[in-house]
């Protein structure tokens, strides 16, 4: 089974180790993993900021790079959703591209969803000891139904205790460009998220979307917490 890894631009730039962790997980699940070398960004920032034209260009680029594999997997609910559910809208006016977008749409998965529901991974390769609290990122949760999947994977690590935070499903306030347009509001929302997470006294805050994690980490550090790690689920599942 050939799975193409869509690393996502944020992971590429900020946290390559998440990309490698995803790679390891896919290989552990028995996939032949391909990493298309020219990949950049799925175009979600353009689409969400109202730039239809740029969104079309980037959608076509991703489709051309990623079609033809059995699956496309991204360590992000937000990017996976963009490819799965938005590309067909973005390319609605071009029948040929629309057809290609629809085909790709059926093949793209968020990482934990893929591991649990497609390849049914039963033994994650990592060893992580300690308690974690899990933040449900909005797009993954509400558009792709990512809720049980990361928890099922965490449950495979015998040393992990999951401590649910209050309002785990509440937005962390990131919102992409929102966080740099309305920084004060965004940070205030992030503070509520951090407080709820910290209140669990978990050893680590874990999530599945790097945007949210950077937001939470940035707020946490500003609040003076230099200690609590903020980790992507792939990092936890592959921890050594």
């Amino acid at each position, binding site marked *: 089974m050939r799975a193409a890894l869509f690393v996502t631009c944020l992971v590429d*730039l900020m946290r*390559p180790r998440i990309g490698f962790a995803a790679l390891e997980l896919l290989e552990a699940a028995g996939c032949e993993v391909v990493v298309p070398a020219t990949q950049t960004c799925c175009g979600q920032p353009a689409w969400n900021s109202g730039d239809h034209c740029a969104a079309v260009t980037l959608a076509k680029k991703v489709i051309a790079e990623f079609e033809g594999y059995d699956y496309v997997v991204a360590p992000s609910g937000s990017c996976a959703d963009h490819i799965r559910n938005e590309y067909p809208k973005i390319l609605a006016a071009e029948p040929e591209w629309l057809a290609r977008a629809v085909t790709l749409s059926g093949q793209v998965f968020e990482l934990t969803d893929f591991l649990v529901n497609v390849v049914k991974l039963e033994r994650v390769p990592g060893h992580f000891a300690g308690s974690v609290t899990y933040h449900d990122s909005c*797009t993954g949760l509400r558009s792709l139904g990512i809720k049980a999947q990361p928890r099922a994977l965490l449950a495979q690590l015998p040393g992990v205790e999951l401590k649910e935070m209050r309002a785990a499903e509440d937005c962390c306030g990131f919102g992409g460009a929102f966080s740099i*347009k309305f*920084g004060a509001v965004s940070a*205030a*929302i992030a503070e509520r998220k951090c407080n709820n997470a910290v209140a669990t006294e978990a050893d680590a805050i874990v999530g599945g979307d790097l945007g949210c994690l950077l937001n939470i980490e*940035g707020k946490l*550090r500003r609040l003076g917490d230099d200690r609590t790690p903020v980790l992507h689920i792939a990092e936890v599942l592959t921890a050594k």
Partner: protein
Amino acid sequence: MESRSRQFKANTLAALSNPGLQQNMRQAKGKFVDKRAKSIRELDDFDGTRTAAAAIRNRVLDNLDLWLEKFEASASARGATVLWAKDADEICRHVVDIARRHEVKKTVKSKSMLSEEAGLNLALEAAGIQPVETDLGEYILQINNNEAPSHIIAPVVHKSLDEVADLFEKVHGTPRKTEITALTREAREVLRSHFLTADMGISGGNFLVAETGSVALVTNEGNGRMVTTLPRVHVVITGIEKVIPTLEDLSTLMRLLPRSATGQSISNYVSVLTGTQAAGDLDGPEHLYYILVDNGRADLIGSEFQDMLRCIRCGACMNHCPVYQTIGGHAYGWVYPGPMGAVLTPLYTGLENALDLPHAATLCNQCGVVCPVKIPLPELLRKLREKQVERGLRPQGERRAFKFWARLAASPTLYALAAWFGVRYLKQLAGGRKTITSFSLVPEWMLGRDFPAPEGKTFRELYAERGEKK
């Protein structure tokens, strides 16, 4: 109502630095969200009911002209006068004309957001007619120098008990009361005398039933009933989109509206009012007027924003919105706050007058999943952003930044080059620490957060290096 949506950004900062408001908003959030969650569990098929409700609303909107004609005919047949208003001025003109025709000195009002759109109270006062708001929340706002509501169903959600206590002491000249029950009784007594002496009642309309020519009014306090039972004249001001076909449809919608709004299985009073006082009736108005209002609605029909007209004004979207919960309703600057307001305000007051609102959302879709009529609010916000771009309404700098990013992302070589420099620059900026604490490129981010440092190389670089080693 004059829009202050242009000052959105400044409004948010004021809201964030208002500890009282922050405290009040924190308190309200839990109550609204928890109560709703509990009450929707009473329905065997909540989602199916939402689908049915959306279909009811779509059925009318897809043939709105015909349904309006049907409603008009049914209502007229029962003795109501149906008037039409294109904008705020025409609403006010109609109401003042009606008041003069029937020699009205005082009018009692139950809550109507359209009357806020119209700025009706000021127009009535200018015409020498006394308007009295009778919803407790709206009354509190009126006696506080006509303050604007901050929520469509809980107008004073931004105020604390203490603030209300101070206000009543000052305005009523009575000893200060600190119990909510005592304050409510005081308002009841003041307002009771107004109900008994008003010549005209003004209400909104939750739904207009085409089948019977009725208006359905939903209230908890009973002021809606007072306003439509006691005075000689009743004026209903409502949007043209509020028509529904049948009483069966009303029954379906009533399973959703109170649950979504306040988490009640049913509101205390649901009144279905049809026509004027009949022969022998001991109460009810002798004259009934409907003012059917456009004010921007007609132009949404058949547009990509038509879905917004399904809205039944429950307020669930704002109750669940992380942004609304953080800044309250006043910051939005016009009549409707929260996600539905962020869509309606630019559509009704002009895209250029509310540029920030469609962007003031994380697109978390909490609003979309709670909406009882399945309005895709995040998608509508995104479309409004697209309209702004199409019409050249975004700031130059922002456009350039996005264009630059899009160009980079479209070219793997350029992207790799920029990424190579970028991550190294940021790593250096962090100077060995986990986060960057000063970063002038994203000042808004830095307002309340550090910027986590990148690892220093990109995944693509490292992956390529790994390949070479192998």
